[in-house]
């Protein structure tokens, strides 16, 4: 299924049944992107992510079973770039794959745009300016720090732990309510309707994502 869908889109695919096979495969002939099912027969998918991350920056999109949010979060914290939950639509997976590849290229070219814009939202990181539909928005320091983190990882899901660590420091990793309060404030300031967000999406049980298109 997956292979047909990917190959119709012009991607070349290689498959391996085991975690060890994946690690070896990436080592011998590095692909542009890895799609990793967390339910592997031999190695734990999270372990594969960890091993790959020791020497490779290849984008990893993990596939996990429904109801195993913890597993996803661990894989993301171990260095996976994104995830989809089974059962997922092909469109969803392709969107994740495209976003992960785009990010990888942007980093390679070291040309991360200083101005990010999507829909009516425009964020100028260098000048610390935020606009919604042409209107300047004032953000507090933590609000801006949070938004900057999201912009730098636009399109990618960020786990609660990662966001807390980056914005508030490693000792705040478990203080999820900071994050909830500030994300809520950001939404009130940036979203046209904060209950039906179009920019700052909640990934329930995992984290947040800033949309790119």
């Amino acid at each position, binding site marked *: 299924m997956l292979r047909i869908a990917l190959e119709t889109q012009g991607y070349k695919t290689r498959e391996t049944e085991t975690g060890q096979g994946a690690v070896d495969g990436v080592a011998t002939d590095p692909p542009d992107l890895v799609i990793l099912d967390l339910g592997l027969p031999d190695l734990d998918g999270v372990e594969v992510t960890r091993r790959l991350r020791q020497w490779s920056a290849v984008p990893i999109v993990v596939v996990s079973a429904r109801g195993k949010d913890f597993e996803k979060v661990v894989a993301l914290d171990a260095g996976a770039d994104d995830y989809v939950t089974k059962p997922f639509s092909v469109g969803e997976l392709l969107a994740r794959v495209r976003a992960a590849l785009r990010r990888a290229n942007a980093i390679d070219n070291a040309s991360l745009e200083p101005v990010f814009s999507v829909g009516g939202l425009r964020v100028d990181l260098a000048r610390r300016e935020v606009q919604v539909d042409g209107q300047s928005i004032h953000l507090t320091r933590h609000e801006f720090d949070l938004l900057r983190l999201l912009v730098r990882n636009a399109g990618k899901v960020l786990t609660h732990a990662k966001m807390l660590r980056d914005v508030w420091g490693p000792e705040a990793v478990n203080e999820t309510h900071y994050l909830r309060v500030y994300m*809520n*404030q950001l939404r*009130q300031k940036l979203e046209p309707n904060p*209950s*039906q967000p179009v920019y700052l999406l909640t*990934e329930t049980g995992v984290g947040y994502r800033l949309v790119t298109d």
Partner: protein
Amino acid sequence: MAHAGPRSRTVIAYVCALLAPALATAAGWLLYHGPRRPGDIGKSLLSETDVLMLYLLGVLGVAVRFSRGPAVVASVLSVAAFDFFFVPKYLTFAVDNLRYLVTFAVMLATGLTISSLTHHLRQHASSARQAWQQAEAEFLRNTLLSAVSHDLRTPLASIASAAENLVDSGARLPAEVRTELLRTIGDEADRMERLVGNLLEMSRLESGGLVLKRAPVHIQDVVGAALRHLQKRLRDRIVQTDISGDLPLLDIDDVAVEQVLVNLLNNAVEYSPASESICLSARSLGAWVEVRVRDHGPGLPPGAERRIFDKFFRVSPSGPGLSSRGAGLGLAICKAVVQGHGGCIDARTLDDGGAEFRFTLPVVANASSPDGGVYVRV
């Protein structure tokens, strides 16, 4: 005692079997040999027969409460103690009257009979309970099986026939018919997925109990995620949200509560015409936040407001273009999750028609205010 292991239970039983005759002896000794009533010289407060009744009471207690072994021990000890302390030639086991032998025999027989009767009774009760549990499990399994097989078969049949159509005459069909058939396949597969998801969720709730991973969450987080989750299913439907950003943080399992909202929204989509909007609102009620989901469909069948939360209960289709699907588990899951958070959930038909579901969720205790300086840590 409910938590004691079988071994310590046995120990307790035998300790009681020792205690009962001892207590009877002590009480009997005080009343029989003890202080006499003034002016009533030579007469005890109790006769020997009364003392015997005290022993019998002890044996009865042990026999009713425990198994046969302790009952036998209690009756033998009682007989021995009675003989030793209360049969003339006190403080010896010597018996010189045939009358007492009969007493002993009756006492022993009583103890044995009662203990074996209660033993049988207890066995009957436990086997009846087991049978009832089995019957209930059987009933649930059967209902589940028939519901599931029907609900899986219906979409499966649609998928199969659409696929067959496409294979047989796909090339000759007009493009819009082909698209329609393909859409049917997709929609029906989604329906099956929802059903299987609910089934899995229900069996998870039933087998492991409900394990909630609670953390501070804003209701807008959960509402936004639930709506996005249903993006495809909601299609062009208008969803009005009336949720203030000032609501306090909730102390909830966001994954479970998202499921509640998804199920309620799914119901609203299912039971109201596509042209009608769905309203989602939330308000603060002290230590709780109340969430409401309302639709503009035909409302609930009268009298079903409570039963709709029962497992496998289904509302039959009513109104044009509406159909009932699903195994009747969605609302049962909602109820389990909301109650697991200590909240309440109910449903009613509004005066102007349409169904409204309300549920409450707990607010985080002493949530600190944002930007209050509490977040700065050195």
